[in-house]
């Protein structure tokens, strides 16, 4: 019990520090640490699959993406710090975020118990799909058109980025030579 409380406090502390950090690179390091602690939380909540996804995608890949973005933005960062928004705008944003968080918390706390679920029907019909895993059955059989259209959306987004990005940014061509410095890093 004390372990769970300590873990929750640690997660909150690291999250608060990540938001308040001055330097973008430091914030990204805090974000990866936060994702790692969240994976621990998921294991404590008896959801190891979600913990795997959180560790691999939420903190691993997303952290790598954010580091790469933060290095590209380093030059623009000094200018952005100088252009601070007026205090009233920041206060309005803070109030809006608090309201949205309170709304989400209220919804989660007011969920009906036991939660309504289609899991029994999904399991009953799984033999007809020929798949072993119920999650795979949902993604590939019951909601197959949904998955297909998601792929189309991703492809369109990628084509959009390739078409609209200016050449100097370097994302326009799908094959780009990666230059290594003599030290290899």
């Amino acid at each position, binding site marked *: 019990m004390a*372990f769970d409380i300590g873990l929750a406090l*640690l997660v909150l502390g690291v999250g608060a520090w990540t938001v308040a950090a001055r330097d973008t*690179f430091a914030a990204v*390091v805090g974000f990866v640490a936060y994702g*790692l602690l969240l994976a621990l939380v998921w*294991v404590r909540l008896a959801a*190891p699959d979600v913990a795997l996804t959180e560790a691999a995608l939420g903190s691993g890949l997303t952290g790598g993406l954010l580091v*790469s973005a933060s290095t590209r933005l380093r030059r623009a960062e000094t200018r952005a710090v100088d252009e601070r928004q007026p205090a009233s705008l920041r206060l309005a944003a803070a109030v809006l975020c608090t309201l949205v968080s309170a709304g989400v918390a209220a919804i989660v706390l007011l969920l009906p118990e036991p939660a309504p679920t289609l899991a029994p029907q999904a399991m009953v019909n799984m033999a007809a799909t020929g798949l072993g895993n119920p999650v795979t059955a949902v993604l590939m059989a019951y909601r197959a058109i949904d998955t297909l259209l998601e792929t189309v959306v991703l492809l369109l987004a990628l084509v959009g980025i390739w078409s609209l990005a200016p050449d100097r940014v370097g994302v326009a061509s799908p094959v780009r030579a990666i230059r290594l410095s003599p030290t290899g*890093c």
Partner: protein
Amino acid sequence: MLGSSLKHPAMADFLFAAAGLVLAMVAAGLARILWGPGDADRIMAAQLLGTGGIAALLLLGEATNVPAALDVALTLVLLAAFISVAFVKGATRSEADGA
């Protein structure tokens, strides 16, 4: 093989306490992310958090009898290497840019 499925409850408590201890120490190491006068120090604190988190995860999995925690730890250790390399590349490239 080694060990039995029936764990002595004191053993589970001990492993739980050990996981908490490792986590507390790693949390203390997070202060280095706060202070660290350079990016290298921050990367090191993140690396310690990764290794400590893996150790805490292994201990937790054994204490609460969740065998999947071992798989999560395996995923984490693979990612820790790549993320640390990505951090180092990010730190060096920005310094080379003169920013």
